[in-house]
């Protein structure tokens, strides 16, 4: 394990995690909303926002799938040291991190009819996030919102699975947004 795996976690976990979670919850509750998160610095190529989502939500109970571009020894060591989360294939993942090209189409669990919550949450690494592009409608959105999405068709198909489906965080640098399964994209 590299020595820098030991750094870059939350300095004051209870407080840093509380701050980060508030933003994470707000973006999931209001699709299209973009928030800045701070308090953790993961090793490249993991974005700061993706790292903070992992720090806030992952522990030994949540298997994490790393797509090839994020699957480096430094990232693995960092996640192991700071969260204790085990690594898994796509089919067992509670969380998955990677670019959209890497994650799209993988066999992630979408939940079951009786337990639709047992689906993977994807952390989609983007180059940038902005309130432009696709139009979003659905719960959490007053009329409509806009968000720069990597594509629309896959998210439309995902929404059709409701109440099953995947939920997504979109991350770029220190910014995070979310797209739950309920959001209708056009």
């Amino acid at each position, binding site marked *: 394990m590299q020595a820098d795996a030991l750094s870059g976690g939350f300095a004051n976990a*209870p*407080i840093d995690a509380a701050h980060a979670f508030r933003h994470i919850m707000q973006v*999931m509750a209001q699709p299209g909303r973009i928030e800045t998160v701070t308090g953790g610095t993961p090793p490249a190529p993991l974005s700061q926002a993706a790292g903070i989502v992992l720090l806030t939500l992952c522990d030994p109970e949540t298997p994490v799938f790393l797509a090839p571009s994020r699957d480096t020894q430094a990232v693995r060591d960092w996640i192991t040291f700071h969260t204790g989360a085990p690594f898994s294939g796509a089919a067992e993942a509670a969380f998955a991190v990677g670019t959209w090209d890497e994650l799209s189409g993988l066999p992630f669990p979408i939940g079951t009819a009786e337990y639709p*919550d047992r689906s993977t949450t994807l952390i989609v690494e983007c180059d940038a996030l902005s309130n432009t592009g696709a139009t979003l409608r659905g719960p959490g959105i*007053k009329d409509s919102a806009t968000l720069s999405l990597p594509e629309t068709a896959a998210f439309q198909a995902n929404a059709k699975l409701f109440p099953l489906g995947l*939920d997504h965080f979109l991350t770029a640098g220190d910014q995070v947004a979310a797209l739950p399964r309920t959001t209708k994209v056009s």
Partner: protein
Amino acid sequence: MTDYNFAYLDEQTKRMIRRAILKGLAIPGYQVPFASREMPMPYGWGTGGVQVSAAVLMPEDTFKVIDQGADDTTNAVSIRRFFQKTAGVAVTEATAKASVIQTRHRIPEEDLREDQILVYQVPIPEPLRFLEPSEVETRKMHSLEEYGLMHVKLYEDISQHGAIATAYAYPVKVEGRYVMDPSPIPKFDNPKLEMAAIQLFGAGREQRIYAVPPYSKVVSLDFEDFPFEASKADHPCDLCGATDSYLDELIVDDDGGRLFMCSDTDYCQGRRAAGHVGAQGVPIEEDAA
């Protein structure tokens, strides 16, 4: 309370609750199972709401707790003190000043904003429970969207009483999919469930968390010929004169004389401070004296 973590719960427990909250927001009205912890207050007394609040609170928050709409109810006082001690948060009785509001049985009269979070204490999260006692069966019914039993129950009310005999915990359908128990709020509050704030519901003993994101569609179940009606006592508040607020009924003398006052004590106080006086009220300076 230096022996305990910020907001009492350990970080792993908070993460587990936070994950459940996010899935709840992603599937509005669906009850997410969570491993409720044993809290230092009894089950049935708000342990679900307390765990949800503990998982969302930040040190900068301003916290308000109401029970029956009032900040001064003993259990509300007890929960407010708990978080003052364990999270060191500021507390308030003013709805507008609160960033997180934990409630039992009411939605504040004042409209809530996008930057506010309303946490409900829920005793029985399963709206179908009193029609079907088995969890295995009700889970199946939700998965199949099989809600006929609920409509039969409401319709039996109508044939027996001429009206739907559910006055509180009145079932709603969220975003056209899950039938949800809005917790035992009076049905007067049901229309307010469509709001700008994030609504989180915690049931500790029954180990369920569910959520309604801002601006979600929340429809009270009804029939075309018997539409849902949000009713309240046909009376203005005797203290502040409000005609639009939900009222408590008090017995004020040995002859059984009644007085009606706002159940939302902050709302009533605010109106009285603005100079409104009800039939049996006094201007606010006199009361304080």
